[in-house]
């Protein structure tokens, strides 16, 4: 065991991140799956599994934009929205020809990712020209615009194919068709295709993409741009190209997560993907640690379950949630807390050393 731990320590940092990220996800999945199949899981927890998967993918996706690209995005739920609705349209309209199975889900997720990617491209081109908080506000604006447009979107399908309208159901001009998206009422009657396994595979896919990306030439370029844009330009890195690439990849992942999300509930409405949802995902990312993949996964899981755990406190639970959030932020980020943590860590490690080799430590102390 100790030997293994040592070997693990000697690995390259990126390899270590990879192992712990994939390992964590696989272990969580196996545990959840066994619990689910043996029935040793509460309905409450079981019902949260797929949403947790989608939010983990959302957090990974946002971490790519915020943690790695270093650009604050306050409208990430917008991509989730695009993915969710395009996925729903695909699933509902293809349901009759493909049957509702994993393949339909896959197609829905791919189409969701594709359209979110297109949205990412359209939004990224103007947005990424801006800097800092201005960029943040424009992503917020785009998030609101997407929500607003989705709120006015009417889609239906009948024998003649898909019908779209931005006005009302009546303008769809359908005959005996099926309404897929009904403006502010959103989509109803979505086939429930999402499963824990699908969520797990999507997380693995997102991890694969994100981890590979950051440990590659593109990843280095992106990190370089974040650390020092001017220097990155001076060594021949086209800033826009790499920012846009990353942004689009992030959007695609968010779109796929959105499609999975929609397929887990029989209904989904544009309102869901608002500023608050964007912020929620941002909270996952920031609490997990910017650029920290494992952190994102852990923080998402814990923070998603927190309000459910706090249900016992009835009316006070959201108040408690807010207080926990503030305290955790201060405890993990304030100067004093960090100093305190460092000193505790120092003491712990020195104790460890002491137990290992008492006399040596003493000498060292004397020397100091």
């Amino acid at each position, binding site marked *: 065991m100790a030997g293994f731990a040592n070997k693990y320590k000697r690995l390259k940092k990126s390899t270590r991140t990879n192992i712990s990220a994939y390992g964590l996800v696989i272990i969580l999945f196996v545990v959840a799956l066994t619990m689910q199949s043996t029935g040793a899981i*509460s*309905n*409450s927890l*079981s*019902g*949260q599994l797929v*949403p947790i998967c989608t939010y983990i993918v959302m957090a990974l996706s946002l971490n790519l934009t915020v943690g790695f690209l270093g650009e604050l995005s306050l409208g990430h739920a917008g991509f989730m929205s695009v993915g969710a609705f395009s996925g729903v349209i695909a699933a509902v309209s293809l349901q009759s020809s493909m049957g509702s199975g994993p393949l339909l889900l896959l197609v829905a997720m791919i189409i969701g990712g594709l359209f979110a990617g297109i949205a990412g491209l359209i939004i990224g081109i103007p947005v990424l020209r801006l800097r800092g908080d201005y960029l943040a506000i424009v992503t917020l604006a785009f998030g*609101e615009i997407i929500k*607003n447009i989705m*709120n*006015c979107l009417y889609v*239906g399908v*009948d024998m003649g194919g898909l019908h779209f309208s931005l006005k*009302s*159901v*009546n303008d769809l001009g*359908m*005959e*005996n*068709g*099926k*309404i*897929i998206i*009904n*403006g*502010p*009422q*959103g989509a*109803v*009657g979505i086939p*429930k295709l999402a499963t824990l396994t699908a969520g797990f595979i999507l997380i693995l896919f997102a991890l694969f993409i994100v981890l590979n990306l950051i440990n590659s030439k593109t990843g280095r370029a992106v990190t370089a741009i974040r650390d020092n844009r001017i220097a990155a330009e001076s060594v021949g890195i086209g800033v826009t190209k790499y920012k846009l690439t990353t942004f689009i990849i992030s959007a695609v992942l968010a779109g796929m997560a959105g499609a999975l*999300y929609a397929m887990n*509930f*029989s*209904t*989904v*409405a*544009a*309102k*869901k993907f608002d500023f608050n949802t964007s912020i929620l995902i941002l909270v996952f990312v920031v609490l997990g640690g910017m650029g920290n993949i494992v952190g994102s996964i852990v923080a998402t899981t814990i923070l998603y379950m927190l*309000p*459910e755990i706090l*249900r016992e406190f*009835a*009316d006070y*639970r*959201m108040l408690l949630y807010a207080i926990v959030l503030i305290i955790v932020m201060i405890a993990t980020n304030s100067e004093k807390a960090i100093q305190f943590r460092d000193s505790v860590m120092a003491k712990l490690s020195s104790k460890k050393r002491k137990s290992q080799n008492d006399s040596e430590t003493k000498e060292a102390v004397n020397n100091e």
Partner: protein
Amino acid sequence: GSSSESSGSGDGGNGSSSALKIGGIGPVTGAAAIYGQAVKNGAQIAVDEINEKGDLQFELKFEDDENDAEKSVNAYNKLKDWGMQVSLGSVTTQPCIAVSTEINNDHIFALTPSASSTDVLGGQPDADGNVSIARKECMFQMCFTDPNQGVASATYIKEKNLGSKIAVIYNNSDAYSTGIYQKFKAKAKELGLDIVCAKTFTDDSANDFTSQLNEAKDAGADLLFLPIYYTPASMILAQANKMKYEPKIFSVDGMDGILTLDNFDKSLAEDVMLLTPFTADATDDLTQNFVKTYKEKYEDTPNQFAADAYDCVYAIYEAAKKASVTADMSASDICDKLIAEFTSSDFTFSGLTGNNVSWSDTGEVSKEPKGMVIKNGVYVGM
């Protein structure tokens, strides 16, 4: 508001306790908290009263969903863990659509007090005959469906000849409001009513209505139809008043509660007409008792959400007794029995929101909307 919520044994099994477990879901925090809290309180009063009677015992657990479909499903799962046998669905429409699917899959009987969209029940075609969702047999509604109210409103206006030029302001980001409006529009066309202007707002812009009002005024509308909840409606009334624009105002059950608004200038609501199944000012004993208890317990005046919830619990109680449901039955068995009872032709129910109320097997309620007009700060029948 506080609740005297008894904690469940949580062993997930059915019938281990002597009380029938009723689960409710709704927003008790967040922007829509008012509706969830009203339902929670109304249902709790009914449960307390029924338990006093000493025969069939109820236990109510109410979970928060922040008016969010996802959280509503989470809350539903939590209630399942608790051992819920009968459900009150979910208070608001969107979450209830999501929850009703789960409920139907799990075969648990549900009677929602307030989620009024037809999609909650499923199986109902819209104006063009398009069906978006199949019938969920376990789902029943206590409130009018949205189309129902739209049609009723148009008919009422036509019959009583309330206005010749109609303007509508509705909440485009709200399923309830949009649902009523769409049906209203279709029916109005059929009846030859003239809608001169239809303007929308969203939850995010529910502050300033001057531009909508200006437009209605310019279009010469003499009747303003407001298929919306009373909070934005109160602002519309205030702003119209400031603009010195005084059309007749006709509204739906969402308007109920406007008179109970804290500090509201009741003169603004003078002559407002509305369709509502319940008024807190009604003089019958049932209503007066309910209002009194509610005020004592929650220091607030109940609105129709509370009344519908109260009725829901009583309807379930009566049906359960008739169908000889006992607390030790499984949720699925109870569901079968209650569906049979609710859809049987000889089951009717009288409560706060209507007399001789019955249900069809589509899950819709059939009760008479009451046309009310506000005179001197109180409701008067029209």
